[in-house]
């Protein structure tokens, strides 16, 4: 008498029609949060690098990070995989303005 192992069960059919609802929202939030984080890091280094010379480079230099992030964020909206990251990048603009631009000018006005 021989024992034969039963053949493995076939994998469940893939559902290409619907995204996995339990996974997508979390991934979107993670990308959005990463976008905000990246935007804040960009602003931090931008204003740290320019320092108190921020308004002396050109009158528009203080707004360089704002314009750059807005342009990048809008461009990313056209790429579905990067859309949530792009929205995060756009959301980071006002937050960074509230934190860094104010600080930057406060430091400059003390000179």
């Amino acid at each position, binding site marked *: 008498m021989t024992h034969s192992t039963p053949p493995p069960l076939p994998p469940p059919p893939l559902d290409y029609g619907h995204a996995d609802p339990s996974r*997508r*929202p979390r991934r*979107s*939030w993670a990308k*959005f*949060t990463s976008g*905000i984080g990246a935007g804040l890091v960009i602003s931090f280094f931008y204003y740290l690098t320019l320092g108190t010379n921020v*308004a002396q480079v050109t*009158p528009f230099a*203080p707004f360089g990070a704002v314009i750059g992030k807005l342009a990048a964020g809008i461009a990313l909206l056209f790429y579905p995989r990067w*859309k*949530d990251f792009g*929205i*995060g990048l*756009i*959301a980071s*603009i*006002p*937050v960074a*303005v*509230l*934190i860094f*631009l*104010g*600080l930057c*000018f*406060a430091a*400059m*006005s003390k000179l």
Partner: protein
Amino acid sequence: MPLAPPVLVVAIAFPVQFHLFGRSIHAHALFEVLAYFIGFQIYLLIRRQQHDGAALPVEQNLWVIVGCVFGALVGAKVLAWLESPIDYWSHRHELAAWIGGKTIVGGLLGGWIGVEIAKRIMRVTRRTGDAFVFPLILGIAIGRLGCFLTGLSDHTHGVATSLPWAVDFGDGVPRHPTQLYEIAFLLILGALLLVRSRHAHAPGELFRWFLLGYLAFRFLVEFIKPRYTIPILSLSAIQIASLLGACACVIQLLRGSRGNQKREADDDPFHATAPSPAAA
């Protein structure tokens, strides 16, 4: 009448600077970043706990946040300019003066308007404010700690007083620590709203109660702060904005309660809201 020296002696050199990796970090900047970070983390936590029926689809929710932060920025700046127009006008040629300064009341009202604009563009009618209540309470309380540690240059301190808990912010004058009053008020308001959130409530009701409570507090506390008042009304721009915002909250709360009564009369059980996930 000479002011009595403060009984509560706070051994702090204002403005407080923290030292991290050999660099000094301003207390205001540190606590502001902490406030945004912790507030957002709590928002995500609450959002995660919301049952599927109560939450907006993710992309709409993200755009609501974008509307909120842009509105908050505009509101915070515009009200700061209106709060001390003479100072801004006298420094109108200095870009630094225009960019510095912001107000929480303007940020809250601007954020609310920003959310409503974003929702109108996306044709969303569902109320979304309740998820923002506890992140805002904690965020403002943390931010106010930074304001307190900044001292006089933050312009959020109170007027001179002889009360025993007065704080000397470095100029030898004992003053009301209005930032600490605000933190204490927010903690009490948060506890009350947490209790309210455990009972059935209409969508958006918690946010309106929070805003009404906070704006009423700000309207009153401004009387013990140095402020520029608009001559005819004898009120500051923040007080006028607080009054207008509080009126909007009262109108919406009344409308909501009338709507609830009507629904109860119609015996429609589907409009009762489950307790907020923040209460979980």
